[in-house]
């Protein structure tokens, strides 16, 4: 395993911890989007381009979008 793979694995571990330990959902969404990109990079470096393609589209766009729309609705209900 070369240096890039080791680095990406450690970054994934740190990123997952950061996503869990952020308590406010509004801040957590940005962390989740970045974590999705790190995962996509990890899939690419470990020779899995198919999975990286779907992870980029889902983890950086679709999932944070839906969470943010849910948060906007919740905040609108509270007003």
């Amino acid at each position: 395993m070369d240096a890039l793979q080791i680095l990406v694995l450690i970054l994934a571990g740190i990123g997952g911890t950061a996503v869990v330990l952020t308590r406010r959902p509004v801040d957590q969404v940005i962390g989740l989007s970045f974590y999705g990109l790190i995962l996509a990079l990890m899939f690419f470096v470990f020779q899995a381009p198919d999975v990286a393609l779907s992870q980029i589209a889902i983890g950086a766009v679709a999932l944070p979008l839906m969470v943010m729309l849910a948060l906007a609705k919740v905040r609108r209900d509270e007003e």
Partner: protein
Amino acid sequence: MSRRLRSLLFVPLAAAFLVLFLSATVGIPAVGNYRGPYGDVLNAVAVKERHSTDVVTAVNFDYRGFDTLGEESILFISVIGATVLLRQRPDEIKEKDKEEDDGRHVPKISDAVRLLCLALAAPAVLFGIYVVTHGQLTPGGGFQGGVILATVPLLVYLAGDLRTFQKTTPRILPEIAECIGVGGYILIGVAGLIWGGSFLQNVVPLGPEDAKVYSGGTIPLISVATGLAVTGGFVLLLIAFLEETLQLRLKGKRGSK
């Protein structure tokens, strides 16, 4: 169960699980020494047997096609569940028509965002169709291309045009796409049953040896069906979430404003 009790119970149980997990990974070969026979067998025979150069897509839609049918039905059912949960009941609609003009401050969309989104929308459609149809040759397939295609209505919405979004994505189109997707997959399976003897057998002629777009038998057909299903599902989810957040009815004639 109160929070304290839950957190206190978590620590010993998590420790026990960690011990079990780590003792199980001792038996797995070291990272980088993949030993198992199935992957090597598939890599050796898939190109010759199915005339498709992307072994992952061939595994997804042909060798393990039945599992992919199960996953697609999970997608179908979850989309139905989400749209049913977010439906607007008739008594809710009357309240919302009243509280619509509550003076929500909507920031003006900047010109750079508008230009970028409108310029990217058409190439994204082309790219999505390319990824879906070339699934058996290069990295791609129904799932990836479907998600790329599903971001196009989002780009149209982000360009600031709610009217264009309402006109280009009526709710009936993604519903039809999703039904064609899942139904088409099952019909291809039944065709395999009728002409080949087992469900999802590859009965369409396989095409040329050096792989072209139409080689692979049923693989490109299933890939297109899956792309339609995934696109329809995600666009339906987008419409349901946007409707709920903006408190509008995006359905068509009985439009809110």
